[in-house]
């Protein structure tokens, strides 16, 4: 299939992923959890070139249970590193559908994220790779891999979902 010319699909994907970004920046975490396939995986590797995430160390490797617990941690008021909570603004762009078998798509995009908390502002830049499955109401996320360009360097606390 010639994915380069599927502008209608690209529009649908872009709208879906922008909605996801909006949910995360606006802390609409319950809505965000609904975007996922039950067996979906949210992954932030420590090496942006790594492909075997299951057998290597990551910053996050969240199945459904861990995603729910992460949301609870960010919103539960028990974590001193998220109170006051960080504010984030993320810009996702450069969407490209790299594979589409009619059911499942692989999408790559760029994300620039700025966070602010207390007195400090940070910038995190990443390549994102999504696997999305078509669903009656749009898409479900099967896999989201956040490849921070400085993943193998020293980071600061990330008290939100990248």
């Amino acid at each position, binding site marked *: 299939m010639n994915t380069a010319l599927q502008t209608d699909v690209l529009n649908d994907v872009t709208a879906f992923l922008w909605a996801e970004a909006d949910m995360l920046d606006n802390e609409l975490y319950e809505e965000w959890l609904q975007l996922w396939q039950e067996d979906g995986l949210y992954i*932030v590797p*420590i*090496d942006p070139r790594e492909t075997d995430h*299951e*057998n*290597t*160390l*990551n*910053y*996050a*490797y969240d199945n459904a249970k*861990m995603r729910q*617990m*992460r949301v*609870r*941690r960010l919103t*539960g008021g*028990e*974590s*001193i*590193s*998220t109170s006051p909570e960080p504010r984030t603004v993320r810009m996702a762009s450069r969407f490209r559908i790299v594979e589409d078998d009619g059911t499942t798509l692989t999408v790559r995009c760029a994300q620039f994220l700025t966070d602010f908390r207390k007195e400090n502002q940070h910038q995190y830049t990443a390549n994102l790779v999504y696997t999305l499955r078509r669903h009656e109401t749009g898409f479900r996320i099967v896999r989201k891999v956040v490849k921070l360009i400085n993943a*193998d*360097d*020293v*980071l*600061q*606390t*990330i*008290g939100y979902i*990248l």
Partner: protein
Amino acid sequence: MSTVIPIQSASAAGSAPATPIPYAELVQPDRVHTSLYTNPAIFTEEMDKVFYSNWIWVGHVSEVPEPGSFKSTWIGQQPVVLVRDRKKELHVLLNRCRHRGATVCEHKKGKTASFVCPYHGWGYGLDGSLRGVPHPESYGDTLEKDKLGLVSLRVEEYAGMVFATFKDDLMPLAEWLGPAKKWMDLFMKQAGGYPVKVAGEHRFTFPGNWKIQLENTTDAYHFPLVHKSFLSSLDEQAKKTFDFVDGPGYVEDLGNGHSVMVMIPELIDLEADLDKPIPDRFAELAQALRDEGHDEAKVRRIVRAVGGTGFNLNLYPNVACSMAFFRVLRPVSVNETEIHHAAIVMDGGPAIANQYRLRLHEHFQGPMGFGTPDDGEAWERVQKGARAGEDLWIMVNRGLPGEKPGTDGPRGDVSAETGMRAAYRQWLKSMTA
């Protein structure tokens, strides 16, 4: 191999204050002065007297498994490379060409046949010796190649942990570690009979002094408060395991600044009590291992080891064996510290068991973990609070009244500040040596 170049002392470098710092007044048996976190002159002297005058952790043998394997790291503020040569000997080399001083290695880890300076092409062997210089004719016969190897430090290893020092006359590593050695041996049992292997690390910084993190490794007192959100994410049985502040654990001073905090006494020896019931959170792993065909004895050994040991061992001044990982600190400046949490797996062990270990590490550690960011927040607040008031003290007197002689040194209850007192006593010794 070249000889060690003596490090110029801070006072000789002109950075020490006009009047010497009265260290003995700043470190009392039950308290230390806040300026230990904030005074840049103290930090400068610490590099010389603590980091360039002791055995400093540089890595684990598994990080440099083969001839040519290397890892670049730091001792204090100096860049170094840990490398294994063709004869499998370990070397720690200053990361600095002997010609004009450029670093010869800018990769964090890897494998190489030699180190070549990118500036003028001086090439060094894996043992640091100078192999070749482009166009040597201009030096005539004045180039003393055998004296111009990369500066090579003294290296010694115990239980797979590699340490280096600038000091030729420092006591042997084994003597320096003393009673800590038996705890290192116990710690290495968490690979369930396989060799311990470092499998990546989380690195993060916090805007605070390195001693704030040094204190934290044997501080059980903060755990239920700072790590509430982590505890809330555990099942009831695991929650109970981590509820150790009122428990029978203890902290013991092991001498030379080292200390051990035993949080979960039944997990001191991971090869003991193998017939005890398997905790619920590892039941699925046990079944998966049985399904893979491992016999019950092996299943139990791996499952008991997979969550790590029940203690934190602080090795003064820059590394800890902390439950299930190596916890390394790097002082960057008086108010900035880098922390590395190196994950441990079983080298050659069942993939599913190693996946469990990796997921447990990700759950608590690192900048996105459920524990580390809250530690970082607490440490950051200590540094910020240290700016309030000139003449304030850090209290480390908790557990003093009940302290009793232990096997190797004073022993307090599990949330006693015995470990911090041990570290500061050694710190004072270093700074006044």
